[in-house]
């Protein structure tokens, strides 16, 4: 494969598509598929045939607005239809070339106009299982350019200059990580893509893997060339069957095209990727635990150093990056570090994909430039809290993150700003809560999560999260005392400072951040024995406590 061949494929796809007057893109991500968008696509195909329209019906990945699915996008008119059913197919098809069907149309300019799509640039526009569709949108141009025209050190420089930081949560500078692996000695090195998106409430990685899997493979291949690896693993949750099947198909196609395998682009560079399935352990998102899992062992973390960059998979230097990080690589190589660094804030460059969920009107996936304010995302793009309820908090960073109250909504999003307010970027889950959510109960929910997901290797996390859970349960059921609260705070400090890995170190964050901004709710539970949101059922608990003789 060389650049001319890529251009040829691009041209042939363009000619192929130019035969049609309209393109009907049907979202077939997990969200829309659950509402039978596959049947919708068949119905649209039939309607095009019987209606004698010259239109292409295409399966695409996620268009972002999952709550309004199934979604259909008509190009070149850019008409978006939401809540589609198979019976609407004929109506839509017969309207092609004329006025769009107003009652089915979805006009959400404020939702889409403020977004900047880099990672999601192809999502909803290409068939994820057609490699030619990807190539037609400049896919693999970056890999071919990198392998044939660039030195590994130039690529690492480019990534470093772009200011890209790890999108998995920690925000470690990607270029620095690549540089460390490249400098590490030894012939055998590995590249791992972390697709173990265990963070509840986040689905960016699933969506990218389902909608544009080739982009992730291309990013991995460029990384492998830059650090000198020839073998890659992509670790995906077993809970994402669609992502796994699409990846499998894409791997096969990429190998067939000679974009993976031996002597890529007629150079000495070899690289191939294998899929590894997760088995439902949140801790496997931690890099050393993930490596243990790929080696076929229990996913327990190891103390670092040595970092995986020096001694990782089977003791060899290993580069681990998140799905979204790899998805950013090809555009950076293609458009240059300057372009990427031109977006975002001082120390957080580029864009970030967020999974906007919870009590919000426009639920789904959004991609925004770093530095945008939380208010713009929630009130502008998200459309605010529905049903006349009042916004209370937004939770970012999953079980490791925190709850951000309304007075901080004007915060501009960056890795450092979020840590400053007691939360973190995390992988990009953003869960909006309104006045019907009890913050003590939410804290308890996250602590319960960490308790059940603790791998048990170190005591602060194993025993500490269980004790935190007990204390929070006491408070939620009206048995808590102020002493319990003090003990809870002390325990949070101990767990934070003494746990082995990120899971334990960040497990107290939901408690600490809710205590910081919503202490009055804790006091209400403890002193007044009432739950302001009406979530915690204290009365039932009180009744159950009454000895049976008295009831009888």
């Amino acid at each position: 494969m060389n650049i001319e061949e890529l251009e040829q494929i691009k041209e042939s796809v363009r000619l192929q598509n130019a035969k049609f007057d309209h393109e009907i893109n049907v979202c077939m991500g997990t969200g829309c598929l659950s509402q039978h968008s596959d049947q919708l696509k068949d119905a649209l195909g039939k309607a095009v045939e019987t209606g004698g329209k010259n239109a292409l019906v295409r399966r695409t990945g996620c268009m972002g607005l999952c709550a309004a699915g199934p979604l259909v996008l008509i190009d070149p008119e850019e008409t978006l239809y939401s809540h589609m059913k198979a019976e609407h197919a004929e109506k839509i098809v017969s309207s092609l070339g004329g006025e769009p069907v107003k009652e089915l149309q979805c006009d959400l300019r404020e939702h889409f106009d403020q977004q900047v799509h880099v990672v999601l640039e192809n999502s909803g526009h290409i068939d994820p299982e057609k490699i030619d569709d990807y190539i037609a949108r400049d896919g693999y141009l970056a890999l071919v350019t990198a392998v044939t025209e660039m030195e590994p050190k130039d690529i690492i420089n480019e990534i470093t200059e772009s200011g890209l930081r790890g999108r998995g949560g920690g925000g470690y500078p990607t270029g620095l990580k690549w540089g460390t692996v490249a400098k590490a000695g030894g012939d055998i090195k590995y590249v791992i893509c972390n697709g173990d998106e265990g963070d509840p409430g986040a689905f960016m990685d699933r969506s990218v893997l389902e909608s544009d899997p080739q982009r992730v493979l291309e990013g991995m291949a460029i990384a492998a060339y830059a650090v000198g690896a020839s073998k890659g693993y992509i670790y995906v949750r077993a809970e994402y069957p669609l992502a796994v099947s699409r990846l499998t198909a894409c791997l096969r196609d990429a190998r067939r095209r000679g974009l993976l395998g031996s002597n890529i682009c007629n150079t000495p560079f070899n690289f191939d990727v294998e899929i590894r399935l997760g088995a439902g352990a949140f801790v496997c998102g931690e890099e050393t635990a993930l490596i243990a899992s790929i080696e076929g062992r229990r996913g327990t973390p190891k103390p670092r150093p040595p970092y995986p960059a020096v001694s990782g998979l089977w003791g060899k230097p290993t580069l681990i990056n998140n799905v979204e990080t790899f998805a950013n690589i090809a555009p950076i190589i293609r458009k240059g570090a300057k372009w990427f660094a031109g977006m975002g804030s001082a120390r957080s460059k580029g864009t970030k994909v967020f999974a906007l969920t919870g009590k919000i009107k426009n639920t789904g996936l959004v991609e925004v430039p770093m530095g945008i304010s939380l208010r713009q995302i929630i009130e502008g793009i998200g459309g605010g809290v529905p049903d006349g309820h009042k916004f209370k908090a937004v939770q970012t960073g999953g079980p490791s993150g925190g709850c951000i109250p309304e007075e901080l909504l004007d915060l501009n999003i960056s890795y450092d700003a979020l840590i400053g307010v007691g939360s973190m970027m995390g992988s990009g889950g953003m869960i909006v809560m309104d006045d019907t959510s009890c913050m003590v109960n939410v804290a308890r929910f996250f602590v319960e999560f960490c308790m059940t997901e603790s791998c048990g290797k170190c005591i602060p996390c194993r025993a500490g999260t269980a004790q935190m859970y007990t204390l929070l349960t006491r408070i939620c059921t009206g048995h808590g005392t102020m002493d319990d609260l003090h003990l809870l705070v002390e325990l949070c400090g101990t767990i934070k400072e003494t746990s082995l890995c990120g899971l334990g170190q960040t497990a107290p964050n939901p408690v600490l951040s809710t205590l910081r901004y919503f202490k009055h709710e804790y006091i209400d539970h403890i002193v007044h024995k009432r739950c302001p949101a009406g979530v915690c059922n204290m009365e039932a608990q009180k009744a159950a406590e009454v000895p049976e003789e008295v009831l009888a």
Partner: protein
Amino acid sequence: MSGGIVPAFIPPPLPSDDKRWKIVAGTMRKNGFARHALIETLHTVQSSFGYLDDDAIRFVARSLRVPLSQAYGVVTFYHFFSLKPPGKHTMTICTGTACYIKGTDKLLAAAEKRLGIPQGQTTRDGKISLMTARCVGACGRAPVILTDGELQGQMTGEPMIEQLERWAVE
């Protein structure tokens, strides 16, 4: 061990002539019977048989030359693996954050009440298993349940109970 010819490894015979064991053996062969294929192989066993029983774990451990304790440790460590046979139908309720905020705790309580079993159990007649999941990544459709693996979004109590009733009388 010094100097002698190391005999080639011969994997143990299949536990029975059940065809599904051939699929399991296929996964191991594809990975060259390497120890690191343990999780991959267990995935194949679970997808073929629905769960992992003692015989299956023993067979896989012996075939991959992994200590039985390590194999059992892996099986019990990962939530995805089940040591008990599933019911004829499985209802999985997502308890991820987005679903929780949208009230799946109430759905779960209603299902537990209807079936008379806590989460993670199967009804005594073996018809329905009630499971929970830690986020299936369909948060945009929250609250979400899976009926026999099929995703159903924006769920409420009534259609969920109706589904359980349909299964119960099958």
